[in-house]
């Protein structure tokens, strides 16, 4: 990113007082990249094509949820319209899918105790996994919610029906959903 900014600044410098005549031939164009390694030549040429990227991702109207995790609270949303879905939404959503009203935030009182609805033992995760593995990924039924939220068990062995307590990564938060995790509450 820094390199790009520098280049941008350079480009915005005012033109020198004595502009070079347009007819002058430009300097020879140089290759400024890195050659791509050839991995194989038979039966066809295959090269390496590296990609590194940064996305600038917004949590939008759900920002209070992710801020809440860092503060050690679980925030759900609720539709304020009478007669509409009464259950809390976790994962939260800002707008009600049934009546389109703007939802309101509800802070769940700690300790938040849920129940394991189902689970898997993740032995083969994908590239970039940020948890040591294997680990239990659990789907947690939280009283009062119309949804069943996914999470992970920080210790112990998962079983259907087991009670689990919500925990929060308030020190050194990751600023992701991984700031919420669960521990056995039995």
């Amino acid at each position, binding site marked *: 990113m820094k390199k790009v900014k520098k280049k941008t600044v350079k480009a915005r410098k005012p033109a020198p007082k004595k502009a070079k005549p347009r007819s002058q031939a430009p300097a020879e164009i140089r290759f400024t990249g890195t050659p791509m390694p050839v991995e194989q030549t038979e039966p*066809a040429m295959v090269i390496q094509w590296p990609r590194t990227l940064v996305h600038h991702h917004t949590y939008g109207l759900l920002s209070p949820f992710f801020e809440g995790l860092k503060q050690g609270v679980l925030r759900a949303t609720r539709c304020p319209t009478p007669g509409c879905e009464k259950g809390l939404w976790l994962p939260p959503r800002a707008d009600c899918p049934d009546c389109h009203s703007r939802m309101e935030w509800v802070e769940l009182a700690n300790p938040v105790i849920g129940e394991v609805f189902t689970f898997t033992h993740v032995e083969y995760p994908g590239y970039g996994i940020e948890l040591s593995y294997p680990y239990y990924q659990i789907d947690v039924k939280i009283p009062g919610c119309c949804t069943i939220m*996914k999470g992970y068990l920080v210790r112990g062995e998962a079983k259907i029906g087991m009670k689990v307590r919500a925990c929060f990564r308030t020190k050194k938060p990751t600023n992701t959903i991984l700031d919420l995790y669960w521990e056995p509450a039995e």
Partner: protein
Amino acid sequence: MIKFQPGNLRVPQFQRPVYVVAGGTTDYRKRYPEYKLEELCMMAFKMLLEENDLKLDPLEVKGLINMACYGEFADHFQDQLLCEAKVHDYLGLDPLPNVGIKTGGATGGYATLVGANMVASGYANCVLVMGWERMDEVDTRTGNFYIATAACKDFETRLARMYAAYYAPMARRFAHVFKVKEEVRAAIAVKNRGYACSSPFAQQPGKHTVEEVLAGRIACDPLRMLECCAMSVGAACLLLCDEETAYKLSDNPMRLYICGGTHTLRVADRRNMAIPLLPHETPGMYDWMEKELGEPYPGFQSFLASRFAAYMAYRMAGIKNDPCDELDLVELHDAFTISDLQTYGDIGLRPYGREEEYITSGDAYYGGRCPSNLSGGLLGTMHAVGATGIFQGAECLWQLQGKYDKFHGDPKMWTRFGKTKPQDWQSLQIPKRRRALWISHAGVGSHVTCGILENPEVMKK
């Protein structure tokens, strides 16, 4: 939506009949460096034009095409936006219009649905529907991460970066609710990988046993590696026509009906609702599920999107009785054994709660009442994602046309792909050729199409 209003349940209608006249495919491989993607598409396109016994020369057939619908699951894999334009140009179809369709694993099905509507509406008389995927530019774990971005990136992706981890909890809950043994899932893997042994297109054919599957390496418990499909490269296509064009090109075109359904990206957000009933089901038959089991619908055990697509497609195609009696073949989306098993209830091959009986009764096998995935399915043959729902349609077409042996049994077809036809090769041509159904399925059931091909000649008798 958990409560329907009358308009929501209007059964889709085509303004005029739509037919499928031809299919084409490549073989499928985990890595395919020999060819570029557009070269693979040309391979499938040429098979469609040249090897389907069409009554006009290939270039005359091409001269009838006036629209193309293309399916590609993920731009990530090839790092190429607008690949549709590359393929379209490479096939020599410019400046005809084309459209790209993207609905995850159901991309092929939805590309077919869009193509059918192009014909039904009169926009086109002859539509090329083609799908592809090239998943070999990245290693398998990176590919798994890319696919897992088809889970919710805020709330799910980081919790595994691996799609099997979103199906495994459903497998566990399904077994818990309906008391189904793991052997049933393993039998599905054995069956489909076994049928792939008859296919020259197959990527992972294998003669396995239930014991071997269950003793195998675990991906995400309880799903074993052999219960999961693989990264895949290849392309497939179909040619869709109006009635006049269809019979100009073919003596045995198949009539097409196709409908779609959707449901939440996150399983988390599935709310309890009443079960939409298929035409042969009766009100009250599922009361026990909530009363006795206390289990919500669709919960983690069923796919509302598949149920909704079948609900509409059966009505559109006039299927009123037990689907096992009305259909002679189904090709289902067995990306994982559990997705296959769950779908049996959704599309009524068995009532909900008795899905396993479709396997244990023998109905699902070749020679059974309504065999499934004789193509080898996604587990045995391919899941080059954008191509999948189109490849399944091509297999259904060839089965109804009585051409299973032509496309799978010709030794030249095997040598074309660098293989030798097995000495114990078995024909899987279905004897009754009335109707075939295929399910194209995305996410954890986010998008589904239910396509039905009907054989007009056989149905007349």
